[in-house]
């Protein structure tokens, strides 16, 4: 009982200092930092969006999709005619790298793919999900 009380006091003290000690706790600072970490991937995604290194012909994603427009991340997964089945956004990203950019598709689990998706979602923030919408 005494130990329990002591631990409780210590916990309150630590929380008072802004240190989260329980599994479900995070602070405003944590949230802000994690959001900022996400934004670093958005920046990396933007860099890839204008990079001629994804393809082999100098064409970049931003040429047809300025600010990621017309990529519609909010509609995925959806049936994609160009692949003949329902797919996730990353598969369409790879389709574009293979076809208009004449490049090698990315590994779908790579940090580059996550960065591109992060960028596209950011440019489309606030738009309602419409999965499957053509």
């Amino acid at each position: 009982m005494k130990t329990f009380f002591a631990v409780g006091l210590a916990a309150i003290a630590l929380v008072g200092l802004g240190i989260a000690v329980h599994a479900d706790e995070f602070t405003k600072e944590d949230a802000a930092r994690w959001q900022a970490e996400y934004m670093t991937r958005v920046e990396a995604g933007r860099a890839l969006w204008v990079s001629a290194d994804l393809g082999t012909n100098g064409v970049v994603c931003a040429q047809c999709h300025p600010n990621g427009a017309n990529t519609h991340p909010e509609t995925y997964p959806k049936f994609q005619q160009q692949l003949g089945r329902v797919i996730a956004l990353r598969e369409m990203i790879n389709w574009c790298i293979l076809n208009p950019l004449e490049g090698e598709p990315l590994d779908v689990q790579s940090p580059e793919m996550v960065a591109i998706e992060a960028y596209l979602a950011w440019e489309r923030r606030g738009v309602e999900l419409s999965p499957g919408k053509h």
Partner: protein
Amino acid sequence: MNRIILSLALLIGSVGVILGAAGQSRAGEPPLGLPPVPIPADNPQSPAKIALGEKLFNDKRFSSTSMVSCSTCHAAEKAFTDGPLSVSEGIQGLTGTRNAPTVVNAAYLTTQFWDGRSPSLEDQALHPFLNPVEMGLPDHSPILAIVRSDDDYAKAFKDVFDVTGEKITMTEVTKAIASFERTQIAGNSPFDRWYFTEAATLNEAQLRGFGLFVNEGRCVSCHRVEQTQALFTDNRFHNIGVGINNIQKEVPEIAGAFLAAEATLAEVDVQVLSDVRTSEIGRFAVTRGFDDLGSFKTPTLRNIALTAPYMHDGSLATLREVVEHYNNGGVTKPGDPVNDFLSGGIRPLNLTEQQIDDLVAFMEALTSPEIAALVPKSPSGK
């Protein structure tokens, strides 16, 4: 005893499926991999109508020499084509300019003929009778004379359409033919069984081939595969660089002259089969749109292994040559100049020899067993 009865029932049942009219599944279900076949409201199916249509389809009397029927160029034992002919031969061995497309699954096409000049199976049936290099009749009256006077036909038309004598017209004749053609549908290929039901597997080459079909081969956008069905056609028209390369320099002259003549519909039918140069302008002859210069309809790839030779002019003998044509970016001989009006979907593919072989292997998995069974000495779909 029960076990014997059961085995017998199964045996009879399975034999019934194999011998049944091609493609007609139990309880009117469409074939595996295909949607229900579109049936127009004014031409419902019936067994009697289908039988009448089949009889008309095979009747050689509907030609000026009494030697040519629909089945001459669309022979069941050749998967409803006339391979190995590149272009078909009609009366007196006269040749046209185009390769006979298969009737199998034509019911799913939204237009008929390579240039889509016919909106329906019913309409399509009207034209070969009158074409000078096909059946060579001056008009349809010889056909009507026969069907009105022949006892068997008269009875059948009365049964099916409740018409006799003068009331039997080409409308009824073509409805019956179309009705028969609508039963020539087939899916259930090894691909269908693997892709839609996982009841079968494809071999390694076929699996790689399917991956290429969707990705580096860039096939699926025109030869459509979808989540629950696969028509292997988009019912659209594309210039893929077959044939038109031969007339590239003459396009302005041919197109201009064609329009100046202001052809009627029947005349289009005659001109495109009689003059190779005119044939090569493809659907432009029908729509007179720039977009359609040199463009032809995407055929289905179902049963493609059985319907050689390939393309609107039958100029490519094997599936390998077909894939090579696409690999070259829309020219048959590598390095030939590409025509100005090439579809935006066609580009050099940079496939390896192995990849080309894999695509061919995949296409060989699209054969329906019931169609293979019609063709003597063909490999019946693995």
